[in-house]
C-alpha cells in the first residue's frame, strides 16, 4: 500500500528532470546553498510549509489520477 509520504515524494520522471537540470553547468547556481541569514531562512521555511499544505491535495489528486 502506498503511504502518504510516498505519494507526495517526487515521481521518477520528476526526479529525472531534476537530475538533468542539476547536471547542466549553466544551471549549477540553482542547486547551490541559499544563505539568507537565520531569520529570513526561518521565514522562508515557514512559507514553504504553507505552500506545501496548499498544494498537497492537488498533488495527491494528480498522482492518483496518473496511476489510473
Amino acid at each position, binding site marked *: 500500500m502506498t503511504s502518504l509520504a510516498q505519494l507526495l515524494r517526487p515521481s521518477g520522471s520528476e526526479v529525472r528532470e531534476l537530475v538533468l537540470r542539476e547536471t547542466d553547468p549553466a544551471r*549549477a547556481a540553482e542547486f547551490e546553498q541559499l544563505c539568507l541569514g537565520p531569520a529570513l531562512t526561518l521565514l522562508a521555511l515557514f512559507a514553504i510549509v504553507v505552500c506545501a499544505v496548499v498544494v498537497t491535495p492537488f498533488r495527491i489528486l494528480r498522482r492518483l489520477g496518473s496511476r489510473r
Partner: protein
Amino acid sequence: MTVPDVIVVGSGPSGVNAAAKCAQRGKSVLVLDVGYDDERSRQVIPAGDFLTVRRSDPEQSRYFVGEHASADDLAGVRVGAQLTPPRQFITRNALELAPIQSTSFAAMQSLALGGLGAGWGAGTYSYNDVELEEVGLPILDMARSYDEVAADIGIAGPEDDDTSVELSRFRPLLPPHEPDTNAGAAFASYQRSRERVRSMGLSVGRAPSAVLSRRLERDGMVREANPYEDMDFYSDASRSVYRPRYTLESLLREPNVAYRRNAFVSSFRSTGEGVEVHFKDLESGAEATLAGRRLILAAGAIGTTRIALRSLGMLDRPVPVLSNAYTYLPCLNVAMLGRPAENRRHSLAQLCGVFSDPSRPTDKIVLSFFSYRSLLMYKLVKEMPLPPNLGLLTARLLLSSLTIVGIHHPDRRTDQKTMRLREDGAGGSIDIVYKRERTERAWIDGTLRSIRRALRAMGCVPLSAISPETGASIHYAGAFGITSDRGDVLGTAASGQLHAAPAVYIGDSGNWRSLPAKGLTMTLMANARRVAAAVCDSL
C-alpha cells in the same frame, strides 16, 4: 615464481596488508584476485573543486549520476552505502559469481581491485582492549600492528581531544584536518556545552581518518595532502585518501611479490607440503590450480567463509554471521542556519563521537559527522514529501546547516544470525538468515533516543532517523571463531590458523566473534598484518 611461500586471496584492506607484511619479511607472495577496475571513469573526471566542476563540465552527469541511470534507478536509490558511478566497479559481477540468497540481509561483496576498500570512507578507529578481547584478538600484538598500519598508510587525527584516547590508539598521527564550516560550528557548539553533553554520555572530537593532511612518501610512492576540493566520493586524483591498490602498486615493485588478476578462487586443498588453491581464470574460463606453502584467506568475511566451507566440505551447515546495524540521523546544525559554508573541504567524516550507555558502559558507540554537498541535491529532494521545486528550495536553504550523523551499533552472535553454503554456481551460494532479537532492537532504539537527546544538547537537532536494511553497513564477520579447541572444525588459533587445515589462515574478519560499534577497516588491516607475521613465523 615457483611455489610461493604465501598465497593471499583478495586485494582488499586485509589482503594487501597481509601481503605487505609477508613481503617485508622476505617471503615470496602471490596475490590471487579477480581485480575488477574502472580506469575509464577515472579518466573522465576533470581536475578542480566540486563547484568549479559543477559550473563548467557539460559531461558531469557521466560521473555524478551515471550514463545509464533510468528514472526508476534514480528514484529508487535510497540510503545505504553511496557508491557513486566511478566506484560502481566495486560490486561488479559479485552477485553473479558469488550469489547470496536472503530476504533479511542486504550484503555487499566485492571482487574489485582493492575490494570494498576502494570505496572506504577512510574512518580509522581502533578497538579498545575490551573490544579486542571480545572479538578474540590479542591486545599487545594488535597494538603493534595498529602502529605499523598508521605509519604506512598515513592517518590524520588529533592526539588530545575527547575521543582520541578511545579511537586513535596508534602513532604516528599526521596533523588533524581542519573541520569544514559546518563541522567547525558543530564542534564549537559542543565545546560550549561540553560538560552537559558529556554528562549525557557523548564525547565529540575531530575524526581520525586515512586522508592525508600533508604529503607522504613511502616505499617510493608519493601521495599528496588532500586538496579540499570535495571530490572524494568520485575521484582519487590526489591519492590523499588511502586505497588498498596503493599498497599493492608498491608491492609489485618488489621482486618477491606477484599478482594474478582474473582469478576467482573457489576452494583449497591441504597437501603434505602446504596447500593447493583452485580457481577459475575468468579471462580464459579455465579451471586452474596453484600450490603454495601457506594460504591467507582475505576475500572478505563472506567470501572467505564461502571458500573455507566449500574446501572443508561443510555444505548446509549454519555458521554465524555478524553485521553492524547502522542508522543515519539527518540533523539541523542550528548554529549554521542561514549562514554560508565555505567551499574548501573534503567529503568524508569531519567529526566523530563516542557514546557510552550507562547500562552497558563497555559498548562504545561511534558516531561520524558528515556535511552534505557533493552527493548532489536530487538525492535529498527525492526523499522530501514536497513538489520538486519546493523540495529544492528547502534543500538549498538547509544545505549549509545539514549534518548527517552515521551511527554504528554493536553486533553479537545469536542462533538467529546464520549463513550456510549451498552448492550452486562456480563457488557455491550463501544463504543468510538474520534476525535481531527483541532485546537487541529495544537496546538500539533506547540508545538512539539517548544519542538524539545528546545531539540536541550540542545544537544538532535530528530531523529523522533512517535505518537501512541489515547488512548495508558493509561490515561483516563471523563463521569461524578463535578457540583453543583444536577439534573444532570451525575454529582457528589466535594466529588465524584454521584447526582443520593448518596451512590455511583467516586474514580478515571471518573469525571474529563480535563486531564492536565502530568502523572496522583499521582493525582489519592491523589484524591482517598480525596474521601474516604468524604465517611468516611458521615458515
